């Protein structure tokens, strides 16, 4: 079993996810951005989309499917950018 299939890898993933959420909370408090409950799922869904896109592109490259990786990257970049801007504007809403 390789590192990326091991439980240890997922333990580190979880650790980083917790750190990212704490970092986001601290950052929003520093910036004076209010974070009501509905903003959290919005941010988490966007981050998940980004993670899945990166995983999709990486997997496609790994499988030698360069066309799939290329189109995946193009679509993901556009959708992530547009939704990222929308999420950012929602975050800044008071």
């Amino acid at each position, binding site marked *: 079993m390789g590192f990326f299939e091991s439980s240890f890898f997922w333990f580190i993933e979880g650790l980083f996810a917790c750190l990212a959420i704490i970092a986001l909370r601290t950052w929003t408090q520093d910036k004076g951005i209010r974070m009501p409950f509905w903003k959290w799922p919005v941010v988490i869904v966007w981050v998940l989309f980004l993670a899945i896109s990166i995983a999709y592109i990486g997997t496609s490259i790994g499988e030698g499917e360069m066309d799939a990786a*290329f189109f995946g990257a*193009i679509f993901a970049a556009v959708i992530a950018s547009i939704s990222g801007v929308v999420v950012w504007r929602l975050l800044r809403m008071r």
Partner: protein
Amino acid sequence: MAAAKDAIKNRERLLASVILVSLICGWVAGLFKHHSDIAGFLKQALPGAVRFDSSEDNIYTGLTHAQSESKKAGFVAVRSAHGYAGPVTVAVGLDANGKIVNAVIVRHTELPAFFRRVTDNGFPGRFKGKDCSDQFEIGGDVDSVTGATVSLAALAEAVRVACSDIATGRLGLLPIVKNKPAIQFGLPEILLILLIVTGFAAYGKKLPANTYMKWVVLAASLVFIGFVLKRPISLININSLLVGYWPRWQNNVYWYLLLAVLLLPVILRGKTPYCSNICPFGATQEILIKLGGSRRQLPEKCSQFFKVLQRSLAWIAVMCALVFRNPAIITYEVSATFFTIIGQNWQFVLLALVLILSLFIARPWCNCLCPVRAVSDYVRLLRRGFTR
């Protein structure tokens, strides 16, 4: 200050004249373009024939031997029909029973990415064995191809005309009547007229809730002209007009309406509502800039650079179309790629860049690269020169 403005105007007028002369030269040069020899295509259309006798009606009789005692192997007709970017020409071979032996594409000027869909689906080889009395109707006796309907319709029409001409002219059959209305005027044309009327009204600020109306027209245009009909205006339409590939108006009311809404207002009044109020790709950029919440314009120096680039690229594309008599020889527009998800890889990269930039800069495609905008600017410049 006034002297500097006059100098700029004089320079623009001189440039407009130079461009006009160059386009006329390009058009004349295109007249001398070498046309490919069709002998090879005749042989492919009717492989059983050794030699071909031609006649005035452009129907070739295929003969089985080189000598005078040879028998007729069949007939070949070379016919064209108007596709998206000009004529699609095919050589169709028929045997003595009126069955298609083979159909070969002689020439086409369609966009390669779109036409590849037609050939990848086995056309024109799939016409083999069809009877000359068939209707050649897309979605009927000819399977449709998603994303290349116009190109396939042109191909099928050219084959149908060739079959019909051989059947009536050589096989002594009755003319084949196609079950098609004399003038094609349906929902797409009605929708386009509605959009044009409301777009004009919103542009002329004649509607009560003008801003809201503009958004309604833009959204409707994005949905109908963009995603449903997938036929926004493109430089290819303008090039077809200049090259002289004018399709029959009876079957192409939509095509003429679209060109009229772009060019006529510029010629008559010096401005067009198409770009700001009707263009579906413009609507996409407007929606994105609204989402981005910014309305930033490019810096002056940058804007000047892109204006020169936009006009130079458009000039090169038009010149090449005129010289090579191919409206789609150079195309870099991303609107078709956006609405059809068909295109070259670099077009997808450019499209992604434009969409992302649209979140932060007002209409980057329209202001920096759109060749249709460059053409309308040029017509405006010419008009100004003439009216003066």
